């Protein structure tokens, strides 16, 4: 209490004494009191900044950025069964959402059907069940997926079948795959969602499937889409996941570059006629936006500059699209608090502003109840309004990269970039992302940063409003939280039973046999996955097949 009522010592202030011994960014970069032209004396406009849409893309990947097209409001959504999610999407669309992103439930993201016993408690949990193409049909019924594109957010192992379910559904609706736009997340390097324990290790979420196979599946999707669905983004490197696990801002983008290298090299080594300009053009990235406002903006600008350099210098990419870092921002869930949830709306507003000033192509703004539940209607609407007020009332989108030229922001962009390259090189010195993850080194770095954060919070050095300062025993704001349909398991079991009865099971088995063959022979799996999902093969059936071939030790994915 005493600390919270502290009156500033004005005499001390007038004498030049500062509030703290040192001021740093969240990632530990020391920050001076004042920045001047001297701090960016080495900066060269055309070498380091350039115009938006031109090398090195620091200021943005398109010439007109938000003056041409505002960032997409893309709220990650999914609840209960397909019909409820469809209702939610329709509501959000009416309320002004401009991009879709579908959140899978725990059962299907791990590759289980509702009739599999292990998945009983996970059906309908924290997302929508996407067990077959039928679910995709119902989720997107009546929505203009030819005009607004969809991000299909995936577990790493299920990227191919879930993408195929979406693509096959769109095709069935008469949309040509040559025209269809959208994104698959499926980043093998962020295996384990918000844990970086090594993709083949425990808690990795990869179900014991070796990293080389995860890379293979991702490579298959990239390769196949480059030819068959040219406007599709087949992978979105999700640095968000390991950032949330604990790594800091510059480690986030250093790691991100390294993870992209792993997939690029996987595709190139196949030597099947695709050059970097053919497939890297469709890569996208999925970053976090955390609380340190200027550091996050600097990080995004640095990331664009680094990607340009990496693609040009390491791979000789020529196509502007391959040299441009296209990214989505998901505001940071881990910075949001269980205590005093209304405060989270404010955190999200600042994080969304940082994303917009950082030049993101689409943004998901978390809801204030993020630390407690998936969004209710009320809370997701407020998230959308957060973005809409930003877009329509603040005029920040009137000009491109407005923070450019700030002594501090340019200095910080360069500093973040420098440290990110150091981290990238450390990973490469460990043999690249795969080896750095499998050896446990990445886990060590993540844990070290997570501990550092925890120590800083415990000491009070890092203040979290409502958690280690300004605590309240009783919160004044008591929202009602989303709760899952209590009958969801029964409903989903009935639906899947009906599906399995109504489809041509002979054709399903035949398609699965072909998929098994393609998987074992090392052929691209996508043609047979597409064939199987068109016959309404389920996610559980496809994943059982792959678990059997690729991770036999873990059999039916008994939690490894």
């Amino acid at each position, binding site marked *: 209490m005493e600390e919270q009522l502290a009156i500033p010592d004005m005499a001390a202030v007038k004498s030049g004494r500062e509030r703290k011994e040192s001021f740093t960014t969240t990632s530990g970069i020391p920050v001076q009191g004042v920045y001047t032209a001297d701090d960016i004396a080495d900066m060269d406009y055309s070498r380091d900044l350039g115009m938006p849409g031109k090398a090195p893309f620091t200021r943005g990947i398109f010439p007109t950025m938000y003056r041409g097209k505002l960032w997409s409001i893309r709220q990650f959504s999914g609840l209960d069964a397909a019909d409820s999610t469809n209702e939610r999407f329709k509501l959000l669309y009416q309320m002004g959402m401009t991009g879709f992103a579908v959140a899978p439930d*725990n*059962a299907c*993201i*791990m590759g289980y059907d509702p009739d599999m016993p*292990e*998945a*009983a*408690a*996970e059906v309908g*949990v*924290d997302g929508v069940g996407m067990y077959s193409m039928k679910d995709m049909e119902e989720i997107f019924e009546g929505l203009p997926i030819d005009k607004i594109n969809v991000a299909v957010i995936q577990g790493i192992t299920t990227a191919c079948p879930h993408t195929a379910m979406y693509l096959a559904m769109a095709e069935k609706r008469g949309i040509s795959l040559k025209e269809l736009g959208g994104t698959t997340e499926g980043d093998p390097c962020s295996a*384990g*969602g*918000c*844990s970086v*324990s090594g993709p083949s290790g*425990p*808690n*990795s*979420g990869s179900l014991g499937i070796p990293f080389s196979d995860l890379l293979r599946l991702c490579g298959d999707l990239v390769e196949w889409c480059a030819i068959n669905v040219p406007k599709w983004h087949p992978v979105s490197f999700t640095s968000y996941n390991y950032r*949330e*696990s*604990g790594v800091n801002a510059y480690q986030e983008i250093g790691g991100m570059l390294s993870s992209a290298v792993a997939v690029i090299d996987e595709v190139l080594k196949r030597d099947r006629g695709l050059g970097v300009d053919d497939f890297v053009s469709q890569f996208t990235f999925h970053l976090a936006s955390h609380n340190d406002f200027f550091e996050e903006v600097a990080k995004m600008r640095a990331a664009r500059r680094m990607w340009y350099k990496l693609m040009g210098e390491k791979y000789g990419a020529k196509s502007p699209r391959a040299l441009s870092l296209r990214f989505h921002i998901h505001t940071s869930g*881990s910075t949001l*608090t*269980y*205590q005093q949830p209304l405060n989270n709306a404010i955190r999200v507003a600042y994080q969304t502003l940082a994303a917009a000033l950082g030049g993101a192509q689409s943004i998901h703004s978390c809801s204030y109840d993020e*630390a*407690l*539940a*998936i969004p209710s209607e009320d809370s997701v609407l407020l998230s959308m309004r957060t973005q809409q007020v930003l877009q329509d009332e603040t005029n920040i989108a009137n000009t491109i990269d407005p923070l450019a030229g700030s002594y501090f922001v340019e200095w910080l962009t360069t500093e973040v970039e420098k440290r990110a390259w150091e981290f990238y090189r450390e990973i490469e010195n460990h043999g690249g992302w795969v080896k750095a993850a499998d050896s446990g080194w990445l886990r060590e770095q993540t*844990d070290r940063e*997570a*501990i550092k954060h*925890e120590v800083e*919070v*415990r000491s009070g050095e890092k203040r*979290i409003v409502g*958690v*280690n300062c300004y605590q309240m025993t009783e919160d004044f704001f008591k929202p009602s*939280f989303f*709760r*899952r349909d209590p009958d969801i398991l029964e409903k989903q079991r009935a639906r899947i039973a009906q599906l399995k009865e109504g489809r041509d099971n002979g054709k399903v088995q035949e398609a699965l046999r072909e998929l098994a063959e393609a998987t074992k022979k090392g052929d691209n799996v996508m043609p047979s996955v597409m064939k199987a999902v068109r016959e309404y093969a389920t996610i559980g059936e496809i994943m059982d097949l792959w678990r059997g071939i690729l991770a036999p030790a873990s059999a039916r994915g008994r*939690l490894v």
Partner: protein
Amino acid sequence: MDSGESKAMSEGKIKVLTSKLGFDIHNRGITLVNMALRDAGMEVIFIGNQFPKQVVEASIQEDVDVIGVSILSSTYMEYITELTQLIRENRVQDKMLVVGGIVLPDDVSHIKGMGVAEYFPPGTPLTVISEYIARNAPRRSAS
């Protein structure tokens, strides 16, 4: 599974089994809790992601004093119901059960009613957790 030291060496140390329940792989919190409990001188056996049946089996096999589970998906009601039921069926209620992760405020008294000794929401200082366990863990009698 982390097998820990032999019983002779660990006599006197509070033995804690920690686990994530079900498919939830948000493990940043449990990583820190495991570390904090070890720093506080406890023996920690972390069994990763498991279902309630395996948690109870392991806690019996390892003869632990405390079971700590971490859940950051909305599955806590189902899993804690099953877990506390299995604890009762196996007559190991003398082991203290604590829960970390996300439990909606309205459900906290309910899970305590089922047999959870304490719930630690996100943001709980690690020392609060380790001190609670140190103070309240059932003591093993000298044999």
